[in-house]
């Protein structure tokens, strides 16, 4: 499972990196970025989903491959 942020949609609301600091960070403009490859473990998946549910711009996507 992988998480990604659509940089076109992200406006730097800052919700993702405060909810899931192990999954998301921020760039010099304060926009959200995925840390590393964005591969999720069962624990980080929960937090990534919560961040997704809190992003006002709907900019976070989780690819749930088998």
């Amino acid at each position, binding site marked *: 499972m992988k998480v990604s942020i659509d940089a076109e949609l992200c*406006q*730097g*609301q*800052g*919700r993702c*990196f*405060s909810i899931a600091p192990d999954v998301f960070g*921020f*760039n*010099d*403009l*304060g926009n959200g970025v995925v840390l590393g490859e964005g591969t999720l473990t069962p624990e980080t998946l929960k937090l990534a989903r*919560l961040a997704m*549910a*809190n*992003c*006002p*711009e709907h900019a976070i996507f989780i690819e749930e491959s088998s």
Partner: protein
Amino acid sequence: MSEKLPVADFATDFDHVDSTWVMDPYPIWEDLRSRCPVAHTDRYGGAWFPATHEGVTTIAKDTVHFSSRSVIIGNGRPTEEDLPAPIGLAPPITSDPPFHAIARRLILPAFAPGPINALEPQMRAMCVQLLDRFGDDEVVNAGMAYANYIPPSVIRQMLGFPESDTERFLEIAHITIENVDKPEEERIEEFVPVNEYFLAQIEDHLANPRDDMTSFLLNVELDGEKLPHELVSGVMILILVAGIDTTWSAIGAALWHLAQHPEDLARLVNEPDLMPVAIEEFLRFYAPVTMARLVKEDMDYLGCAMKQDDWILLGFPAANRDPAVFKDADQFIIDRAENRHVAFGLGIHRCAGSNLARLELKVALEEFIKRYPTFELADPGAVTWSQGQIRGPRNLPLRTLR
């Protein structure tokens, strides 16, 4: 100026400075959502108010049909002359694409989490100092003597303006955000000392450059040229105005809520880790900021026959109470886990100072409840609310119980 007529029906004649709206706008918005859902008024030269989350977010993201060249509704329609597009008077909040992105890129790094989080220790020390001034007083004014001092002190430090100017800042923010229904000539006259003040600060920084945002703005280059002073002054006015009344209102509203909900106050005192989640709910439930847009051209939009230069009152606080998007939207739920609120706006004009606002709110609340773990409204009838597009309590006497 003649006396204003009372509002007959908020669906067809709304006025956001009407006393009913100022005191408690939420029932009005709920009513509008059920029967409009876009309200209209002939006041202010003509304005529309979408009351739903869908209406607000659609317009907020649509920079093709709506302009930001004025974001505070004034008395009457603006002209191209007094509000030049696409830059506007206070970039980037008053800018449209493509200039908007250039101006925004310029200021965003200064408001990213890194530099903002570095301000926390001095912010905390300042809150402690303000609380110390209350001494052994049983009743403290959390609005006029606490919340309203925090944002101006922080912004003043960031801009590098004299410490003695904190009170002056309050006046400037007040002039710009409130009293929107004064006649245009009076508004222009009121702005003279504001502009003079900023130009004097620019002169001082040119003579004595230092490590602050004013010097940064004076030195930054756009296409190989430094910014004209009017532009620097515009950005500074934006930072000051957008950063003071707004955060002060958010801090005040949170304290007003806690004073009346001892169960929520007790949870925050006993569960400090809850604070970040609680802050998002304070922001949703008591979102202080309503913005404005201008209709670019005659069109049918959201079922309304909009005319060029009609105002749009963009009510993020109303969007945050829409039950179509938020479960139990009219309930304050301190540990609400899923909270996609739009208190800081949406799209390209997302509040640039949101990281700063959140930090101020967190530090101000943490320090206040640490000093006063229990408090209540000293006199509910004495609480007053600001009038205009920024909503929050002003006079807020609290009885502290120890």
